[in-house]
């Protein structure tokens, strides 16, 4: 399995760099998994490239999630797990947004399956997704105030 991950990862990195040299800011290899860190302004374009490039063919978004790195800046680190079913390959795209302005492009136009995943991140972390068709809370009641999965929101007790 590590061989598969490495062979696939270098193809992705090379194709993305060939398409736009600044698209790959950093590559992290850890425990056989490859993470490509991308600038947040290019996220939507890179996602579209990953899906439409016939050599990459990442046709499914497996998971979209967020890590709150409070008190470090940039605070919110978004991780997107991509899956290519025809090539049986996985890769992770990572980007970060600041805590003062947690806004990023929605990937729903590229993978409609991102709809509820981004609503969950909006609900629990308070990050806005530009271009999302229906951005509203999904798990918590609509009247709820706050973003519970942020690190400065207490696990229990009153706020």
């Amino acid at each position, binding site marked *: *399995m590590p061989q598969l991950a490495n062979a696939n990862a270098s193809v992705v990195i090379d194709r993305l760099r060939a398409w736009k040299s600044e698209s790959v800011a950093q590559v992290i290899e*850890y*425990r056989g*998994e490859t*993470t490509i860190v991308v600038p947040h302004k290019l996220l939507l374009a890179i996602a579209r490239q990953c899906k439409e490039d016939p050599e990459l063919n990442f*046709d*499914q*978004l*497996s*998971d979209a*999630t*967020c*890590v*709150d790195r409070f008190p470090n800046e940039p605070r919110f680190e978004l*991780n997107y*797990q991509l899956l290519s*079913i025809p090539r*049986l390959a*996985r890769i*992770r795209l990572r980007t970060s947004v600041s805590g003062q302005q947690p806004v990023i492009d929605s990937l729903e136009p590229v*993978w*409609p*399956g*991102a*709809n*509820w*995943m981004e609503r*969950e991140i909006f609900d*629990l972390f308070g990050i806005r997704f530009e271009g999302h068709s229906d951005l509203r*809370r*999904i*798990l*918590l*009641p609509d009247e709820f105030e706050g973003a*519970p*999965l942020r690190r400065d929101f207490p*696990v*229990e007790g009153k706020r």
Partner: protein
Amino acid sequence: MVLNMGPQHPSTHGVLRVLLELDGENVVTAVPDLGYLHTGIEKSCEDKTYSQAITLTDRMDYLNPLGNNLVYCLAVEKLLNLEIPKRAQYIRVMMVELQRISSHLVWLGTHALDMGAMSVMLYCFREREEILKIFERFAGQRMMTSYIRIGGLSLDPPSGWRELVKRFVDMMPPRIDEYEELLTNNRIWHGRLKGVGYLPAETLISMSTTGPGLRAAGVAFDNRKAFPYSSYEEFEFNVPTRTESDCFARYLVRVQEMRESLKIVRQAMDKITDQGPIKSEAPGIVPPQREKMKTEMEALIYHFKIFTEGFSPPPGEVYVPVESPRGELGCFIASDGSPKPLRVHFRGPSFVNLQALPLMVKGQLIADTVACIGTIDIVLGEVDR
């Protein structure tokens, strides 16, 4: 007219609220409203050490607790770069496949009950009782077993387990044939399910659907074959697929999956040796045996440190996908080098697959909505976490 299929409803398989906009008997749109079972499991995991969080994972997809344990433990073991002994891996595979059969039995029983075939429910639950008895003998618990731990398993298989599992594995195939006899060629079953809830494969893939729903559309993607984990590459089994992508096709795929799981259980039984380790040797991470703890000083210190402070994996992030009965169950863990995880996220297949419901029921009858909710096979504990 907007009809509320409220959170309390016998056919929503849990506390799911669906707002149905109707035009006579046909559904124009269906908007699911989630969150009635949200208990903040992901947030609670951040407040617990890595081993304490295992008990929380049982309670997400409550029809597949062993699968939840497995995905979480595989992710932590990947962070720690921990090797699990083969015997423990085989026992894990056997238990997870028995759990898959039990989950599909509940699915079949409740789905048939929704469609009006009430006796199937009782037959399925009768077989499920046998599986729960097996779990009780192995782990002491019927459902929330927490049997799979970081480093291996919690307990050795009990004496006499082979006879118990063999009796189940021999009894089961004629029972599955019994369910098929009742349903597969039944005119009412065909009428309720054939042509209902059709979605083309491209739509399913782009909506991030995985599992039997995707395999019934002809896409033979199964994480056990594509990205094998926990020694699945050593087992021989088929991945059933169909092409019609309607409720009936999904029914056939799941029934066949039960038969394939029995094959895997039989192979696992042959591979599991009578003696052998059930946990890795990893002092400081995997607790020592109790006898050693009572006589050796190092073991006592390790035991103390593990249960008071916990172990700290190095900083990093991992994502482990496994094949749950509902689709791709994933666990994303971010570690910051402390004994408590920085972030634990579970990619629940029920949550992601349920997105496709509005597309599935568009233009269909209200009765078909019940069929579609059942065919997606949701467990609200996993949808809401």
